[in-house]
């Protein structure tokens, strides 16, 4: 078994271990879950350190026949794009476990179930980025919904059941459209050569334009729902409102990235002509997402749904970068996925701590926290700064790359998108002002500041945001070759410099 | 006589049967209408057997008769049971299962 497979499947080991532990021993269960996720993270670090960008295709390739009748393989492999997202996943899971130490309690089911679901989800999340077989990808893409469904519905708050159902229905609906497209491309591959689901093999097919358009849409809508892109986003705020902070982090931080990841991995490389046909329209949707998400965020009264809408705005930036298909846009979008993961994680973590202390998620219930819980307030502020892409934090680098990359191909879209940075300042600072500043509001008096566990949980996130902001080179170094290869597969180059040279 | 007249008769009988099922309420009568349809089919089989010049159709009609007899056994049993429970053989009364 190669290290990639090992990293992917390792969390399942934890699931097995947890299955044999008594339900009542919650503390031990948490320790085991934390331990397993940390080991997974270290393993993924080892993998990353040994990683060398392959000249073409993927690294750590492994392939075993799975369903031979349909030429389906258990095929894994990673490039820079997948690697950074896998690292994001493996880093976030232990943080979620540690940060949400108590959120598994008081759910509908036992603590044990919670962590089993989390670890199953981790395997799926790693696997979905590692899969190089379209069918395998699809299967994991869909299967990973199930643990999330139960995590939201079983451990969330408020309208959790309805939110979970809505989430699942949207996702599955998109998934079914994608299934039709997956079948379509398989049939085409069977007509042109031996049938295959291998993403590299599929990218060499010649598909006529009309068919490309349909297949593209099948994939794209699924990913757009997942990402989510306006107007497919309405499931997200409800889900974020109902889910526990940990679940929200994994949902927005990692799961939704599968959508944008899929756009690059499948939409762009498998259907380059269709991409070029639809790109202008998608750019419009992205710009709408950016602005719309920001306005909606300003208008929210609930902390969690506010964060959700900021994410919709950010996902708009990501898709903007992807469908501008320039080096800066694509690399920026990929890097954005990672940074958004950290930045959302920070917001949800601190937001979650605030909510659990205040027993309310209504923004109006908070006020003046800076005076009573300075550390928490500061961390919330820094997380907010990351959301508004302050230079020096990593989100700035990627947001800027995206806008720069978009500008060279779609200047108008980039100009409108840039308005998003002003709106971002508004939604974050209004939130900060209402919750942290001003006199202490009644109901907040007994709030306690962060404890050591919570500080340890969030420290790596903040560190990542700062370090990658000042020194993004390691990430960009890994992502750049993937971008180059995507653009080569699409047969496009960056727009020429207009003047000067 | 033109052989097609047998067919017309068969079709007419079948239609009467099929319509009878729709318009009658009594389960027994409905059941008789169905028997009429089966017999219409038998008539057609025999007629076609004549046209085709082989005996397969006639043999089939014997099978049909046997099967019809079995159906009667089962059918009457069911109708009688429900009549005992409900004191009515009207199929419209038996409409608990719906929507």
């Amino acid at each position, binding site marked *: 078994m190669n290290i990639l497979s090992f990293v992917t499947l390792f969390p399942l080991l934890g699931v097995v271990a947890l299955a044999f532990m008594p339900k009542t021993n919650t503390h031990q269960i948490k320790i085991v879950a934390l331990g397993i996720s940390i080991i997974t993270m270290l393993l993924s670090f080892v993998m990353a350190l040994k990683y060398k960008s392959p000249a073409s295709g993927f690294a750590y390739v492994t392939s075993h026949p799975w369903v031979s009748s349909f030429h389906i393989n258990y095929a894994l492999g990673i490039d820079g794009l997948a690697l950074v997202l896998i690292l994001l996943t493996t880093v976030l899971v232990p943080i979620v476990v540690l940060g949400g130490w108590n959120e598994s309690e008081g759910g509908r089911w036992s603590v044990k179930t919670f962590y089993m679901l989390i670890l199953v989800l981790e395997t799926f999340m790693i696997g979905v980025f590692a899969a190089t077989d379209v069918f395998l990808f699809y299967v994991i893409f869909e299967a990973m919904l199930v643990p999330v469904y139960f995590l939201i519905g079983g451990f969330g708050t408020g309208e959790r059941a309805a939110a979970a159902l809505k989430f699942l229905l949207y996702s599955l*609906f998109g998934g079914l459209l994608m299934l039709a497209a997956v079948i379509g491309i398989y049939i085409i591959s069977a007509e042109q050569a031996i049938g295959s689901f291998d993403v590299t093999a599929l990218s060499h097919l010649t598909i006529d334009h009309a068919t490309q358009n349909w297949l593209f849409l099948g994939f794209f809508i699924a990913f757009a729902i997942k990402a989510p892109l306006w107007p497919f986003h309405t499931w997200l705020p409800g889900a974020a409102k109902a889910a526990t902070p940990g679940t929200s982090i994994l949902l927005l931080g990692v799961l939704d990235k599968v959508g944008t990841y899929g756009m690059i991995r499948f939409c762009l490389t498998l259907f380059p002509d269709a991409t070029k046909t639809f790109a202008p329209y998608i750019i419009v949707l992205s710009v709408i997402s950016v602005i719309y998400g920001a306005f909606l965020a300003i208008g929210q009264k609930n902390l969690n749904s506010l964060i959700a809408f900021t994410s919709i705005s950010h996902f708009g930036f990501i898709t903007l970068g992807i469908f501008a298909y320039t080096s800066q846009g694509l690399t920026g979008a990929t890097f954005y996925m990672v940074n958004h993961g950290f930045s959302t994680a920070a917001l949800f973590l601190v937001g979650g701590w605030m909510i659990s202390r205040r027993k309310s998620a209504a923004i109006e219930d908070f006020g003046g926290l800076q005076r009573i819980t300075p550390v928490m307030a500061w961390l919330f502020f820094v997380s907010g700064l990351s959301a508004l892409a302050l230079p020096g934090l990593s989100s700035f680098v990627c947001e800027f790359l995206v806008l720069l990359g978009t500008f060279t191909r779609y200047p108008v879209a980039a100009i409108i998108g840039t308005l998003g940075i002003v709106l971002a300042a508004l939604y974050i600072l209004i939130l900060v002002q209402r919750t942290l500043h001003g006199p202490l509001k009644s109901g907040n008096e007994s709030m306690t500041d962060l404890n050591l566990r919570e500080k340890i949980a969030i420290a790596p996130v903040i560190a990542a945001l700062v370090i990658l902001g000042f020194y993004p080179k390691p990430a960009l170094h890994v992502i750049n070759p993937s971008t180059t290869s995507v653009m080569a597969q699409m047969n496009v180059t960056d727009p020429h410099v207009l003047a000067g040279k | 006589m033109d052989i097609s007249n047998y067919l017309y008769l068969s079709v007419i009988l079948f239609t009467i049967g099929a319509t009878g099922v729709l318009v009658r309420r009594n389960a027994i009568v409905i059941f008789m209408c*169905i028997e009429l349809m089966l017999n219409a089919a038998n008539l057609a089989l025999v007629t076609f057997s004549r046209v085709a010049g082989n005996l397969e159709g006639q043999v*089939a009609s014997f099978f049909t008769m046997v*099967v019809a007899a079995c159906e009667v056994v089962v*059918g009457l049993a069911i109708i009688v049971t429900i009549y005992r429970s409900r004191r009515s053989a009207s199929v419209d009364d038996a409409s608990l299962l719906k929507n």
Partner: protein
Amino acid sequence: MFTMPTLNYAQLAPILIVLGGALLGVLVEAFFGSKRRGPIQITLSLGTLVISFAWLLRIRNDISATAAMGSVATDGFGIFLQGTILVLAFLAVLLIADNDHFAPAVSALPGSEEEAAAISSGSRTTEVFPLTLFAVAGMMLFPIASDFITLFVALEVLSLPLYIMTGLSRRRRLMSQEAALKYFLLGAYSSAFFLFGIAFLYGYSGTLSLTDVGTANIFSAGSPVFLYIGMVFLTIGLLFKVGAVPFHSWTPDVYQGAPTPITGFMAACTKIAAFGALLRIFYGAFFLMQYSWKPFLTTIAIITMVLGSIAAMTQRDIKRTLAYSSITHAGFLLAGVVALNKAGLAASMFYLVAYGFATVGAFGIVTLVRDSSGEVTDLSKWAGLAKKSPLVSVAMALFLLSFGGVPMTSGFISKFSIFTAAYQSGNIAIVVVGVLSSAIALFFYLRVVLTLFFQEAPTDGVSVVIPSIMTRIAIGICAVMTLLLGVYPSLLLNLVDTMSTLVH
């Protein structure tokens, strides 16, 4: 002049064994006291099915079109479906074996002293076992029948016992009887159409052999009107059995009224048998005239998928919900029929197996959820069941997700392969509609899952009875198969690939 038919008994043996078992069962009814009949009948039925299956394994590679003078075709396809029916029947018998489902004295008036006496004496209805075996025999014959008489007889052999079994419910007797009546009347009605269709096909081709109808029509000068009438009438008889819209109306009522283990049995096995026959007829006899029936069958497939899933959305009864689910699945399976390629045949075979296991399992679970007055099928009473009975709820969720076609369950591979086949045949419309109606269907499956897991249990809640060992085995096998075929479908896919052969 009478020629002795040459029969290949070895190839007919699986059916004959089941029939023999059934007859033995009748004798057991006659000669053993009511107390001892139960265990004997159970053993006998299960034993018969096992022996029959063992025999089937022995002859699995003997392909022949002439086992019974051209009346049956034992080919890979037929043997596979027979085996499937046997396995599922075995599981269904395990469910049936639970004493609680059947009226102790069927002839007694509901609520009468006679009935009370029967209940207090502890007597049980054991006729259901031989009836099941008769039905199984009919079902096994149906997909391999290759002339119209055999087809008709098989249809009746499988149907008649089911009519009776539908009326045997211990509780809600009136509903059960009503279901039996409806099933019987509509079934007989459709049989009449079926037979009338046979007559006209005979008139068109001059033969009752499926194979010859297939070839005769090219040369025959017979009026195509006979063909069209015959074909449509025959098809409708079959579509009735599979529960395709608009010939589906009996399904919800009968599924609801029948004793739940019987519902499970007929939902799974009847569908397999009927689709077996459909596939054989359309892949064989009518293959060459597909231009005439493909459009209408495609239309029916689409209507069935869409209306089935829409109708299920607002159901409040779990059995009716599952009935509409089975209607929707009939639509998907019809997509496999109209694909008319080898992939379609193989996909349909896989689909039937996967669907069969999930169906028996799901109805098996329905038998377990009860309150003081017996089974509770009202969905609102199922709320929050997961809290009390997590294992049962997880199994139910698994079956429902499989019905919905969620990856990692067998239902997903089924849908995938059916859609692949349909796509391959160029019928993209059916794929798109199939995908969309899958989405609608998912809604009601997930609604049930949501009810189970996320709603608060009502105060007058239900409980899950501790299942008997047999029920446990049945549900367990179904669950394992549903998961296994989802995770490692090659097990079965490779088999259906080799078995998907039809002889004419």
